[in-house]
């Protein structure tokens, strides 16, 4: 039971971070390979608040998300301001997350706070349990859904489909992209916080490119412009390697091949362009009810 608990908790945390990547990469079309960096920022920040300053862990999680979100502007602003899309930003995210990891790796202490450099930040109070994670996942899905179906979210989708046309139709590219990035980093930050409160310690080695690739994989396999897709795949991608240990070392190789295969044969992913909404459910239901001959 404890083992299943652990898998669900880790999968839940992965889902929250993947939702962040979904909003940024899946909806807004901005390629991120550095979300591990935002997880690290949020994780350390909220852990420090709780352990060193005695803050309750819920506001600490939110503060960690906020911190990650605000820091994201350091790369977001310069990268989005220049007109070339995508590439600058993707490189900046990768550089940023590596920089964060390097800083953490070389920082033994910040003032009186012993962050422990490469050994990790120890003795974080363990607040994350199954119910906390389930609650957080439900809220995360709810708010992500509210966002992507709002006028703000639809502007993000427009940018993802044709940035130039979106701008010509009046969408403020800089503001909208920064907003998507902020929310996305916020999600990753909260996920990082939950991770720290679960393991009771944080190490820079949690937040490597491998972690970022995992998150990207959830979105690529789950589908562009979909929330349900990344949620399902984020869960599968944690659960399957845990269950099939033998697969562990092959995991990234398989991901790599699947990236190519998915892009070539099913670029919309498992659930691409499918919204978790009633409209979809209704259409599906009507399709089912129609006589087979008409289908």
């Amino acid at each position, binding site marked *: 039971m404890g083992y299943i608990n652990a898998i669900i908790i880790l999968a839940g945390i992965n889902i929250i971070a993947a939702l962040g990547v979904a909003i940024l990469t899946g909806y807004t079309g901005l390629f991120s390979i550095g979300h591990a960096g935002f997880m690290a920022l949020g994780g350390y920040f909220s852990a420090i608040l709780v352990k060193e300053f005695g803050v309750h862990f819920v506001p600490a999680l939110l503060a960690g998300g906020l911190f990650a979100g605000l820091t994201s502007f350091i790369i977001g602003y310069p990268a989005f301001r220049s007109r070339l899309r995508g590439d600058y930003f993707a490189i900046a995210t990768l550089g940023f997350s590596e920089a964060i990891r390097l800083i953490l790796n070389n920082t033994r202490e910040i003032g009186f706070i012993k962050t422990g450099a490469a050994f990790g930040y120890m003795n974080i109070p363990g607040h994350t349990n199954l119910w906390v994670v389930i609650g957080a996942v439900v809220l995360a899905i709810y*708010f992500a859904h*509210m*966002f992507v179906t*709002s*006028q*703000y*979210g*639809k*502007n993000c*989708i*427009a940018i993802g*489909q*044709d940035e*130039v*046309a*979106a*701008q*010509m*139709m*009046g*969408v*403020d*590219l800089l503001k909208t992209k920064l*907003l998507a990035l902020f929310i996305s980093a916020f999600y990753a930050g909260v996920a990082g916080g939950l991770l720290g409160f679960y393991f009771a310690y944080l190490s820079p080695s949690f937040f490597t490119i491998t972690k970022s690739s995992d998150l990207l994989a959830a979105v690529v396999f789950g589908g562009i*412009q979909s929330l349900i897709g990344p949620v399902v795949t984020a869960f599968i991608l944690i659960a399957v390697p845990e269950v099939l240990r033998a697969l562990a070392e092959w995991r990234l190789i398989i991901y790599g091949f699947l990236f190519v295969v998915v892009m070539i044969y099913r670029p919309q992913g498992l659930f691409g*362009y499918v919204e978790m909404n009633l409209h979809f459910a209704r259409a599906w239901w009507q399709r089912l009810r129609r006589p087979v001959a008409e289908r």
Partner: protein
Amino acid sequence: MTASNEILSLRNLTVDFGGVRAVNDVSLSLQRGEMVALIGPNGAGKTTIFNLITSAVQPTAGEILLNGKSILRKSPDQICRLGISRTFQNIRLFPQMTAYENVELGLHSTPHYSLAEAFVRTPRARQIENDTRKKALELLEMVNLQEYAHARAASLPYGLQRRLEIARAMATSPQLLLLDEPAAGMNEDECNELIELIRKIHQQMQYTIIIIEHHMAVVMELCRDSRIYVLNLGSLLAVGSPQEIQNNPDVIRAYLGERKNARDFSAS
């Protein structure tokens, strides 16, 4: 006509692209409510003029005034909010969105409620969304696309995509509408429908319209009572009524350089 009625003024616009002068000292003035056409052989710089007006390209020299105020160095989205909207020569709809969503985007490219309201969707926000939905459907109806509202934009036939682009451009509530080859690839019937449509929106919405078009029949019909600007090799070659343009020897010579257009031209 008083100067205060002038909506758009291009003054001595010049653009160089790496040594090539794409637009050369072009001036043009438009009164509110006018519909004029911009014609010329391929590569004459017509689309570049639209790109200049919408700030997709910055001029090397010259000035662009909207309602008497300079709009140079503004971003394309600011230009849109100031009331200039356009369609594209190579259609640029949001391909995976439905027709309805494409139009809706033009309506809410500047969201009408706060971010906090977006997350909790207050009754006010829902009301705003309902209003937006109604308006989007109205616009679709205006261009006769209501039955395709929930079809993916990319799946629509070419002619309908062009009409959808017009509806999307209208959604940003422009004062000035720039139509870049709206009749491209249309047959005669479709052209006639398009003429009807453009006339209708011109009158009902009181837009000022500039239209770039190769179908001379469409141009001559739409600009019956106004002017046509002829562009050749980046420079303004002639301005005048359809009759004047048709009989202008310079224009005919410029067009004879290009067989296909010359045929179009004589056919009208």
